């Protein structure tokens, strides 16, 4: 595009956004041994989308990641979290009792591993979905009174 003075910005953003998303997953899956976790990871994913929206515009972002998707993502995240709780109930344990997920004897920990990972994925979905939805709601707001009408 001729006369496009945002060229550098666009190129840098295009390079950075995948890195940001990868970093989010690093924070997500590294959360058990270092600082971080699904909350932080969810926010970082939302940051990648917000950067995209700042550089390429809101309409392009909403075409790539539509608002109904982010809203559903947030809802699905909560369902995943609560679903693990019900899974434990159905397997005969207490609510959110990871040990009961696979009906293992006390010495084994597969249920513990699986439970916390699935729950963290639920949190990731919920946080990134909610953050992006909030951003869309704020950025997509149109003034009810036009500036000239003041």
């Amino acid at each position, binding site marked *: 595009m001729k006369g496009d003075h945002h060229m550098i910005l666009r190129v840098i953003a295009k390079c950075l956004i995948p890195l940001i998303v990868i970093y989010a997953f690093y924070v997500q899956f590294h959360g058990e041994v270092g600082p971080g976790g699904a909350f932080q990871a969810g926010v970082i994913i939302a940051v990648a989308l917000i950067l995209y929206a700042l550089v390429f515009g809101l309409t392009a972002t909403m075409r790539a990641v539509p608002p109904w998707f982010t809203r559903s993502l947030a*809802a699905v995240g909560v369902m995943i979290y609560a679903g693990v709780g019900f899974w434990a109930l159905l397997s005969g344990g*207490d609510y959110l*009792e990871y040990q009961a997920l696979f009906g293992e004897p006390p010495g084994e920990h597969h249920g513990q591993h699986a439970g916390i990972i699935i729950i963290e994925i639920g949190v990731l979905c919920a946080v990134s979905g909610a953050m992006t939805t909030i951003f869309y709601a704020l950025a997509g707001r149109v003034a009810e009174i036009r500036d000239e009408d003041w």
Partner: protein
Amino acid sequence: MILETLLVTAPDWAVRHSTVLIPIVPLVVAPVLAMSPSGRLAWLVSIATTAASLYFALLTLAIVQSTTGGVISYHIGNWAPPIGIEFRVDSLNAMILLIVTLMGFLASIFSWPTIVAEISKEKAGLFLCAFLLCFAGLCGVATTGDAFNLFVFLEISSLSTYVLVAMGAGRDRRALPAAFDYLIMGTLGASFYVVGVGFLYAATGTLNMADIAAQLPALGANRSVQVGFAFIIVGLGLKAAMWPLHQWLPNAYAYSPSFVTMFLAATATKVALYALIRWMFTIFQPEFAFEQALFTWVLAPLGMAAMVICSFQAVFQTDIRRMLAYSSVAQVGYMILGISLGTAAGVSAGLLHLFNHALMKGALFMAVAGICLNVQGTTLRDFAGLGRSAPFTMTAFAIAGLSLIGVPLTAGFISKLQLGYALFEQGWWWAVLLVVFSSFLAVFYVGRVLQAVFFQPPANPSKLRKEAPLLLLVPLWTLALANLYFGIDASFPAGLARDGAVAALGLEAFQ
């Protein structure tokens, strides 16, 4: 006896998990509703969900009443307290859970006509999702035995309440500033609460309520404990609309969608009051010197001030919903006054009034919601002559209004009588006079409406049928008849309140 058959017929899993299922079922259904394409489907699902919660709450009550200790302790994730989160239900919160789930169930039944009238079609599913989240949060506050978990549930219910209040903007734009005010005040209240919990955590090193209670006597007059207590009382007082922290309430009730007003008036402040009682009696003990001072010099005067001042304010309102909202603050004053006595009789009177107030305000706001559907206005002038065009709705309104005043043979009379006994027992006869005076003011503000409804000519005579739809009349009359029934035979709510006071104060308080 209904409760016993319920207990016998309930499957094993329901008995074992009933406490946790009360808040979790609506919590897991809420996100499903957020994606529901059809509002009507979402409405039917929300009725089924609140009905399930009501069933589990009744079951919990049955279990609490049938076990000897009267306490159910449920360990989330099978982590033993005080490390894990504990859901702990005794007679006190079993009663609150019954109120919240019953009111949520009745509210969700009648919600559909008001949603069609007041909420845009594509938002109906999201609206009901927010309602279920609020419902789940309130149930969660009333089940949990963990101080921080209580904060989380309090925030779940509050955040969704702000959304629900703001949804009234479709009908009246003033809902937006009302929701914003409530957001600021509610967030302040929640932060005060969490700051207080932080101080207590610093002093005791635990967040489990029972564990905090066990450690407090050894700490004596620790300053950080006292500061924490003060923060918690102010924070929860804001949520419970304790005068003079009630400024958010009148606007929030007056401009939110009429179904939300009914649900909030019947449940939200009740749950915050429950949390106050829990903190003042179960965790802290009334024997602590600073708590005695709080009762005598802060809570009792504030309760009395609320009774008189807010009843006065209610007399001068022209909007019926604002009038009822101010009356709500005054009624909270009665409850606070009862609690501030610190005696078993006082707490039990406060709890009984809490129960009865949920019944009467639920019925009153439901009747107003029914009128809103047809008249599109809630001022006194809009209500003129409605006795002729909407006799069923308005008769139920009148019954609940009389109960609000405290006319004999209604539920309101019983609880005011109990409060009077409790006050006399302490020798506070002048406080009894204030209660009577405040009831006298209630005669004015309720009487003004009833006079307009039944004895004035209608403002718009052309429209004859203004009756609320059947979907609204059935829950409305359920509540109205409950007001009459519990005014004649109060053994069920009085028993609940007495058990609740026993659970709060310990059995020895009754001997």
